[in-house]
């Protein structure tokens, strides 16, 4: 949906909702400038600007966001032509400054045996365009763009650190891809620290270490992923240290990622650690809810799958651990939808991810417990929930209540209610009884252990 049609939608709604005079006085005079992912509104004077801001701006933003979640709406005093001209100028000047030229006067050195060619290992799919930004990573993203615009400048080396699966590698490739786009001649090498070590060892073995050195030191941009794996490998650190120094002296850019703040890694030499902190380090954090929703929407779109905001929100609330878990869950949902030829709804997702949910030990439901317990003792669910008092029925009922107390977060009254509206003291009594029996009665202990195992491990038949 284009920015213009979103604005038109806002206008349509406002026209219907507001009295005609208000609409004509305040809304109609606003001028619209189309920008990428942004609705820029200009008010003719300060008075109108203030009035719109305090009375309608919230509504306008809400309407716009209902069409496109990421849209930004801004309001300022200004004249259409003038602002347009300013924007153009700004863009041009940005372009001029933003493309630092890389000139490689000498032909590239020979590629050592087993090494990658320049630019070969860049993952073209990981760009700034498909990087989902949010509170958790906006700083790192902005800093990465700065690096692109100032290669070899003050952000050298540039270090992105943070927990596993937070988008570090994505940003790293995005930097490489952007620089390559600006400078098709650039020599870019992406590799993991593991690969660097491996190539270095084989260079030593082949007695071709000079070739190795020359090659790595001729890169304009060196991207080294997961430097924590240098820990405890002094010889690799030594070589990396020298490569590092040469590149820095030549003002070639180095970008690194690490799963924690480098100073916290044991087994990396002090002088290397202090070099790492010469430039800029920036943290990425575990994605927040909004970001997780956006990631899901983006990923679904990449595989041409329609995902409603509601479903994305449901999954994002459920899976909070890492981006990879999020992707794994989404792929499972998509695979199941394709297999069963069913549209993806919240209920559908609930069923599909049930394993994941139960396996995360989160939502063992009371209903589930009742079913499994009834099944186990070979009685009907209706009997379990009935008022019958014979022991063959009441004992399983007590067991189910006990498990419900242990495996769910529900209060005793709620548990009682779920058992045909029993009083919470009944639940309490049941729990005490089972607790006693677990000690005195081996069979009960066995039953309890088995049932718990089945319940917490999801659908697996133990």
């Amino acid at each position, binding site marked *: 949906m284009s920015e213009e049609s979103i604005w038109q939608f806002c206008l349509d709604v406002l026209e219907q909702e507001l009295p005609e005079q208000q609409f004509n006085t305040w809304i109609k005079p606003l001028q619209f400038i189309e920008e990428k992912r942004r609705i820029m509104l200009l008010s003719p004077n300060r008075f109108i600007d203030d009035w719109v801001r305090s009375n309608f701006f919230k509504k306008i933003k809400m309407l716009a966001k209902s069409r496109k979640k990421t849209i930004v709406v801004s309001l300022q005093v200004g004249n259409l032509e003038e602002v347009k001209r300013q924007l153009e100028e700004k863009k041009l000047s940005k372009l001029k400054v933003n493309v630092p030229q890389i000139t490689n006067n000498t032909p590239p050195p020979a590629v050592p045996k087993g090494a990658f060619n320049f630019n070969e290992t860049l*993952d073209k799919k990981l760009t700034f365009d498909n990087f989902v930004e949010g509170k958790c990573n906006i700083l790192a993203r902005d800093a990465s763009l700065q690096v692109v615009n100032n290669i070899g400048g003050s952000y050298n080396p540039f270090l992105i650190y943070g*927990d*596993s*699966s937070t988008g570090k590698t994505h940003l790293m490739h995005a930097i490489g891809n952007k620089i390559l786009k600006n400078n098709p001649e650039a020599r870019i090498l992406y590799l*993991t620290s*593991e690969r660097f070590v491996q190539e270095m060892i084989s260079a030593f073995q082949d007695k071709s270490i000079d070739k190795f050195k020359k090659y790595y030191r001729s890169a304009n941009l060196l991207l080294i992923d*997961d430097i924590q*794996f240098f820990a405890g490998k002094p010889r690799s650190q030594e070589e990396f240290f020298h490569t590092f120094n040469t590149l820095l002296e030549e003002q070639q850019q180095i970008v690194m990622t690490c*799963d924690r703040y480098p100073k916290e890694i044991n087994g990396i030499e002090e002088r290397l650690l202090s070099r790492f902190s010469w430039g800029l380090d920036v943290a990425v954090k575990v994605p927040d809810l909004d970001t997780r929703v956006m990631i899901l929407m983006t990923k679904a779109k990449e595989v041409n799958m329609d995902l409603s905001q509601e479903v994305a929100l449901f999954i994002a609330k459920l899976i909070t*651990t*890492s981006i*990879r*878990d999020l*992707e*794994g869950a989404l*792929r*499972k949902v998509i*695979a*199941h939808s394709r*297999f*069963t030829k069913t549209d993806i709804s919240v209920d559908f997702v609930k069923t599909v991810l049930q*394993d*994941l949910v139960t*396996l*995360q030990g989160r939502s063992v439901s009371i209903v589930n417990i009742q079913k499994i317990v009834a099944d186990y003792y070979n009685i009907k669910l209706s009997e379990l929930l009935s008022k019958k008092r014979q022991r063959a029925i009441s004992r399983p009922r007590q067991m189910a209540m006990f498990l419900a107390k242990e495996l769910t977060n529900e209060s005793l009254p709620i548990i009682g209610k779920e058992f045909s509206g029993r009083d919470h003291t009944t639940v309490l009594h049941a729990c005490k009884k089972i607790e006693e029996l677990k000690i005195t009665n081996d069979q009960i202990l066995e039953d309890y252990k088995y049932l718990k195992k089945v319940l917490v*491990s*999801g*659908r*697996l*038949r*133990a």
Partner: protein
Amino acid sequence: MNNQLALGIQLLDTANFDNFGSGENKELIALLQQVKEPFIYLFGASGVGKSHLLQASCFAAQQRQKTAFYLALNEAETFDNKMLQNLENYDVVCIDDIHSIRGKLEWEEALFHLFNRVFKDKILIVSANVAPQYVDFQLTDLKTRCGWGITYPVIELSDQEKAKILQLRAEHRGLELSDEVVQYVLKYSSRNMRDLLQFLEKLDYLSLAQQRKITIPFVASILKHY
């Protein structure tokens, strides 16, 4: 005979999708047969058929003119983690029982790096005894990478399906198992599929050696010593 391969260089000729009762695993099997999904993570208790599915996947890949490699890590003690080098040269890499190397940091690192290399453009299928979030790898990076896969529990077959598979496997061996015999076995033997197949093998051998027809008394006499 042990159904697990020592070093996974060769595949069990009996492992394919046709002789694996699909039961509740239809979706998983359909996905494995396509050989398209970049990363599938299977988990389940011992004996539910994880190794069988992994090996069948290798066959499926080979039938589509792709190269495939199967490796069982429960034998990791007997070889070096250099074993994992260059496996990304195969189109499909199947690693069985990845939980067996948990806690061995060098192995975990080697596996993590293998995952990264395979993820670039190849297909990875792994199995473990529990869901990704429950494998207590020391290396968080390895754990999060496991979560990236489509995760499927391998669901145990029902007794009915097990009976069918037993009869099918017996037929391939030229044995005839009556319904009564199968029901008897399912009642009195361990119903773990691996145990059942091992029992079938023993039955085959003994019936040939002793020139006996497969009857309930015969089966009962074997089960007594089993």
